[in-house]
Structures are given as C-alpha cells and as structure tokens.
C-alpha cells in the first residue's frame, strides 16, 4: 500500500492537544516497511507520545543511522528535520547537533545492527557523555535489509530463519547502558503500546541520556520458532517490572492506585511519572540492583521490561561543558570574535 499517497484530510472532530495539534500533525510519510513490522508500532508510539506531551513537532530533531529502523524517522513528525546519517554513527551526529542547539528535543532512532555492531562504540560513548537525548533502539536481533543475518543482540542458541544456530554471545544494550551511566534506562516491546508510549514520553521529559531498548520483531526474517525476538517468544517471556503513567504539567496524581503500589518520580521538566509497581521489590533508583536483577532474569530466559532505572536529577553534557544557555548556532561575530584589539595584544605577546 506504500505507493498510495497519504491523504491530507482528516476527520473534523479529531481531538486536539494543548497546542491545538491533532494526531495527524505528528505523522510523517507512509511507512515503506513490511506490513506488520514491529518498527511501525514504535513509530505509532512516538507519534502518540509527542502528541500527548504537546510538543511542537518542528522543535524535535530526529536522527538515525542506517537500516530499517533508521528509515522510520521519515514516517513520523513530518514537520521535523530528520537526518538519516551514516551506519552506526547516529550518536555522534546527534551529539554534535545537540551541542549546536540545546533548545531542541533530540530523538535518536537506531537498530541493533546500528547500535550493537558497527556503532557499538558510538552508542557507548554518547551514553557515557550524558547527551540529552532519547535514544531508541528498535531491536529485532537481525539484519533485515540485507535479508536475515544475525545481529549482535541475537541470543546465543537462537535460530535464524534458515535454521542456523547462533553461537555468539548476545550484547544486552540495556545492561551496557546501565553500566555506562545512562540516567534513564528502559526496555519495552513494540507489541505493548500501553507500556511503550509512556516510556517514550517519560524519556523525552528526562534531561540526560535516556535509553530505550524496544524489542521489535522482524516479521520477515525473525518471527519464526527458534527465534528469541519473535512476537510469540517475547509475549511469553516478557517480565514487566512496572507500568508507567506520565502526567504532564503539575496535575495532581490520580487517586485510583492502591496505596503503596505507586511511586511518583518528578522530572526536570516538571512532568511526573507515576510508576505502578508490578514487581514489588523492584527499585528503579538502584542502578546496581537493576544490573543484578537484569542478569538474574536474563539467565532464566526472561525479558525484563519497564522503567529499569531513572535518576531524575541527572546532568547532561551541556552542564558538564558549562555552555551558555543561548544555542551556540545563534551566536554571531559580535559575541564570538575577540576582535582586532585583542589580536594586537596576542601579536605583542608573540614577539
């Protein structure tokens, strides 16, 4: 159906958000991915989250690498600038963009090949630096565009569509992100929009490096028996530790939660996250605990999802660098150039 142009009209009664935008204002071009692709559900979740947060669509910069996942920024936020950069290099391009203008919202979209293989280093270092971004990996464990090779997140012992068994150990990006100091770490499943949308919204509200690993089955090459990234497998092994509600503004927390089951996290932008605990013992403020919890459950073949770690008082790269509040890309010669009088003094000191 991808050859059919997307109609521009919409139902006159379509709901509007605080800024007066409808859902349609957050959409992009029609997806060219396979029908049923998990990535399209993530695209829909991003649209939903941005609509709910009443973000001005053009104030988002969406940056990606190369691969199926990296194509998706064309399919949401059509009024935003997008940058489909180089394979595995989204993190550096995003870092540079963020340094140039700290006022935009940065959404990095990547895949498991992009972030766990060719761009593993860039993934790691952007997290280390605390770039203020929402980094989403659409993780299907397989190279789709090149027709079904294993990626570095494919579990050891899982089978490819052609029946080959993977003998390499898998990279767990969530575990790495935690270890490297990401200040917002989550995992979700493209088939669970109810969990994913608030996670994306909360990640956008977080100031610092937010990382979300979204298991997103590849309908064409990794949805068979023997795969550990198929819809069926993920549904069976999904072990959610919590569910989120993101409350924009300073609205009071809704009262329909049972006492003791909700933890409220206030974010830097004033929004609040209400975390409904599923696993009563799970503490999303305990980095070390999260790492152990993940490792223990991974050993049992379980996929832990939810908001795994958050530090609401995180600092970002701009704070580390002590940069001015004004975006660097708006500064001109009058504030950047020291001028000829200073140069004369420099000359004098060099004689």
């Amino acid at each position, binding site marked *: 159906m991808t050859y059919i142009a997307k109609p521009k009209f919409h139902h006159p009664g379509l709901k509007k958000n605080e800024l007066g935008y409808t859902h349609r204002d957050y959409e992009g071009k029609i997806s060219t991915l396979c029908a049923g692709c998990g990535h399209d559900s993530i695209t829909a979740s991003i649209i939903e989250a941005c609509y709910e947060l009443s973000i001005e669509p053009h104030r988002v910069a969406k940056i990606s690498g190369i691969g199926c996942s990296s194509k998706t920024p064309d399919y949401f936020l059509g009024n935003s600038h997008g940058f489909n950069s180089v394979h595995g290099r989204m993190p550096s391009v995003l870092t540079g963009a963020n340094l140039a203008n700290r006022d935009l919202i940065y959404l990095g979209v990547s895949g498991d090949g992009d972030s766990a293989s060719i761009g593993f280093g860039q993934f790691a270092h952007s997290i280390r630096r605390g770039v203020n971004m929402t980094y989403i990996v659409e993780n299907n464990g397989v190279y789709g565009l090149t027709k079904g090779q294993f990626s570095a997140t494919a579990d050891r012992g899982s089978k490819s569509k052609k029946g080959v068994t993977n003998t390499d150990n898998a990279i767990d990006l969530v575990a790495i992100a935690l270890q490297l100091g990401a200040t917002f770490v989550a995992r979700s499943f493209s088939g669970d929009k109810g969990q994913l949308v608030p996670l994306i919204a909360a990640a956008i509200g977080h100031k610092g490096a937010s990382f979300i690993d979204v298991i997103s089955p590849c309908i064409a090459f990794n949805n068979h028996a023997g795969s550990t990234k198929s819809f069926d497998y993920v549904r069976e092994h999904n072990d959610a530790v919590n569910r989120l509600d993101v409350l924009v503004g300073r609205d009071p927390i809704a009262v329909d939660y049972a006492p003791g089951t909700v933890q409220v996290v206030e974010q830097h932008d004033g929004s609040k996250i209400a975390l409904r605990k599923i696993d009563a013992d799970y503490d999303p403020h305990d980095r070390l605990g999260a790492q152990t919890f993940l490792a223990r459950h991974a050993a049992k073949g379980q996929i832990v999802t939810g908001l795994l770690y958050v530090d609401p008082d995180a600092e970002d790269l701009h704070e580390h660098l002590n940069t001015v509040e004004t975006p660097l890309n708006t500064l001109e010669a009058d504030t950047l150039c*020291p001028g000829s009088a200073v140069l004369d003094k420099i000359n004098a000191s060099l004689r």
Partner: protein
Amino acid sequence: MSDKKPISSVNDFVVRFANVNGSGSASANEMFARAILRHGVPVSPRNIFPSNIQGLPTWYEVRVTEAGHLGARGGVDMMVAMNPQTWDKDVAGIEPGGYLFYDSTKPMPSTKFRDDITVIGVPLTAITNSTYTDPRQRQLFKNIIYLGSLSALLDMDPKLIEQLIGEQYKGKEKLLSSNVHALHLGRDWALQNLKCPIGLRVKKSDKVGDRIFIEGNSAAALGAVYGGATVCAWYPITPSSSVAEAFTAHCKKYRHDPETGKAKYAIVQGEDELASIGIVIGASWNGARAFTATSGPGISLMTEFIGLSYFAEIPAVIMNIQRAGPSTGMPTRTQQCDIIACAYASHGDTKHVLLFPEDPAEAFEFAAAAFDLAERLQTTIFLMLDLDIGMNHRLCRPLKWDDARQYDRGKIMTAEMLEEGRDFGRYLDVDGDGIPYRTYPGTHPTKGSYFTRGTSRDRYARYSEEGTVYADNMQRLVRKFETAQDLVPRPLQANAERPTKYGVIYFGSTSPAMDEAIGLLEARGHQLDRLRIRAFPFHSSVASFLAEHDFVYVVEQNRDSQLRQLIVNENGIDPVRLVPIVHYDGSPITARYIAKAIGDHQDQLKVTPLRKAVS
C-alpha cells in the same frame, strides 16, 4: 687541531641541539631561538622528535638567518651534542670547519672527534653536580647552563636572555633567580676557560621588525576562534593534537561570558575520528560552525562522513596537519602527502575544497575563511597544514582582523522567508551557482523541514532512485565546485626579472625554501616564474600559467607528486610539461635541494632544448 679553517659567519648559521627526549631540553632550546630573535635577527627553528615520550633521540635545529630565509637549510655549523646515543651520527653531520659543543666531564677518546671541526668541551655535568643535588634540578639546569655557555661562545647579549627568563617565570621569583644563576654559571665558565667568541656570532640587527613567532597549529586554532567556530570535536593524533589544545586554551581566555562565566563553545574529545567528524557534521547541520583537527590516519577514518558532507551538503571544516604516510608512516615527520586523499576523499564521485596556507599567518587567515567557505558552499573544507608549519615556531607577519567583518553564513532560508512563500527546495539551484538554500532544524512549524540523507533524492529532498534525478543532482554539485573556484584564495604569481618559458608551481610549507631557491637558481643563470597555489579547485590562472610556460616544475613534499597529478587531472594537460620535483624523506624540503633538482634539469634542457627538437 683542525686542518680546515673554522667557519666564520655572523647572523647566518645553523645550530643543532641533539638531546634525549623527556630531558627538559626543549624549553632551553626554544629560549635560545627566542634570544636570537630579541637580537633583531630572524631565526627558523625546527623540532625533530620521535614518536615517544622519554628516552629517544630528539633534535632542535635553529637556523640563524639575517637574510630571513625561513626554510630548512640543510647542514649543521654547530652541533650541541648532548646525546651519546646519536653522537657518531651527530659529529659526522657537522659541516667541515664547523663546531662541536659537548659535555667534557668524562674524557672522550680522540677517535670520537674529527680533525676538520672545532671541538668545544664544557664540563656541564661537573658544573651541574657541584651546584645542585636534586636529580631533577641537575637535569633541567644543565640545559640552562649550556645555554649560558653558548651565549658567551656566540657573543650573545646575556641581558636579552635574562629578560626572556624574567618573562617566562614572571611571579615565580625563586625559579627566575635560579635560572638566571644557572645561565651565568655556564656563561662564566666559558668566558674564563674558552676563547670567546668563536667564528659564529650573533650581532644585533633590525631584521625581525613587527613579525611574530608562532606555531601554525596555534595560529590555525586562533583562526577558528576568530572565524566563529563554536564546536570542536577531535581525537588525539600527532601532529594535530596541539590545534585542539590551542583552541581550548584560546577559548578559555576569549570565549567565556564575562557575567555568567559560561562557555560560548563546546569541545569534545571524541572516542575516535569517526565520532569527531560525526559531531562536526551534526553540529554544522544544526547551524553551528564546527571543526575537527586530525592527520592522515584520521582522514582515512573520516572518509565515509566526508562523502556524506559532500553529497548531503553539510558544512564541515577539517584541519589536516599532514605527516608522513602511508599507514602509521612516520608520525613525527613532515610531508604534503594527503593531497589526493583529501581532494577526492570518499567513495563515489567526490571533490573537496583544499586550502594550502604557507605559514602561521595564512593558517590563521585560511582557518577563519574556511568557516565562511564551508557555510557558503555547504561542504567540507580542508585546511591543509603539515607538521613543519603546524608544530614549529615560525616567524611571520602579525595576525590581522577587520572588526567590520561579519561571518558569511551562506544561503539560509529563514522563517520569515518561508512565511513570505519562498519556494524551498533543499537541493534546488535557484541562483545558478549550484548552491541551494538550507534551513536550520526547528525553523518553522509547518514549512522548511526536510529529511537529510546520504541517499539520492530530488531537488525537494524527496527520496528518489531515478537516474535523471540523480544525474541532475551530481551535475549541480559540479556547478557548485566551479563556483568554489572563485571563492577560494587565488594563486599568487611572481615573475622572474626577464621573461622566461620556465615556471614553477609550489604550495604550503615549501614556500620559504622555494623563495630562497629562486635566488640560488638565478645565481646559476636560471630564470623562473613562480606560482604559489593556495587552494583547490584551481583558479583559472593556474591553466593560464601552464599555457604561458613550456615547462613547469611542480615542487612538493611527497613521493608521487600528488599536486602535479591533480593539476594534470583537473586541467587535462600533457603531463610531460609538468616536471615533478619531489622531496619525501620526512625532513622539510630545503632551498639547496630544490635549486639542485631544478638547476640540474634546466642544465639538461639547455643542452637539448626539447621544444626545438620536436618542432
């Protein structure tokens, strides 16, 4: 003892210091060079150092040149031999009639010397050990002590050296006085025990003028500050690291908001060169002026991104401080060996703008200009320095800045222009110069956004695999490159006194050696017109110069005469008429080398004038 008359020369000689790296000799040696400058006598110093931190041989060469020849000369008139490891080679390298200065604390067998040189022994270790007990002090002050002895031998004014020490240790009185003390220890010993001065002498002059003494890397970094760079991403690599370090130092001084103390810049040390150029491209895409500094291996790593910059039309400034390649090559030796690698960097059909500064003053100017060019042309601009300019102090004209100058931010479509209903096609050539308009991310709620990609797309940035659409875009990029010809610094031509059919083309750090070689060639009876190329794409005057001369020598510091290849390729001319003169052993090219190579070739031409033979 010598059977050759000692060299006698005032303000025109070469002193070479042979040291062990990590011994603290560098600052004493640099002070020696500066002290001569304070006498009003130009010097041209060069560091010859290993890729190592401590223990390997290092040399510092100072050419004292009242005539102002700033290229390397070749040969050594006085060797300050402080490194036993290289003794034999160092002694062998002295010109007949030259001087050997050494530490005579331990007696040396006579076989270790030469008969045709003057040997000057100063018991440096003995003097040092009798004065200082701390081992670190012994090592550091030994350097100042030999500086003191040299000042006596070369007839230098000690007041000028004291002045320099005073400036260096301003506010650190204890260090200041102990350095002055060490200086006089060495000086007094020489005056009392040796015949001072020797045949080599420094005499006060007025040939330095208002020139400044600066390293090319520092000047380029200052050019980036003046040129408005706000984002710098880099990965350490010799000989480029000092660009980023100097940029950091300059920014700390000149780029903090006086009220808030906040930084009007962002510097990131990347995890590698790929990340560095990625950050530069991300920042430039988002409207900041950004640059990276690197050397050959870094360029190799960056090429994929450079292709993206070319094809997706994103500004970037790359300062390439060239060193001897290929591969790791000779990391601490100079060459001009990345001309082809940079001109055609990346897969597919690509061409990039290169700037070739000749010295720190041009490095400053071209660095600042590079940011205007990058934003005007929306592509990568290479500032092609090399180790010789980048890491050595060079005497050059003072840096200048016009306060009325505004940055050329290129063709930016603003929210107002979009509101007016201007047609925005990201890759639409509205002015016929091949340069389209771009919008910064976040410009307008509903207009002007586009999807940047390295894949083929149409004039409105819509993905397309249509052959005609692709070719249309590639042709526009050619037009844009033609536009660049008239925007980049033009070649500078200097004609011989008499009309001649012979010309020479050169660029970058070859400049001072070439200027000096012209004099040597004239003395041999050869007249040559000179063209100094300052940028690629080549201005039309390069083709005219080639047309006006039968033979043109192309002098460069690489094996494969890369600039010559580029000229042949881009101008479609007969390669026979371009004679390669190449120097590529990692040392800076000298006037003597150029004059001999061209002179010998010219002599041959005189015997059989080729033009007559074929006509």
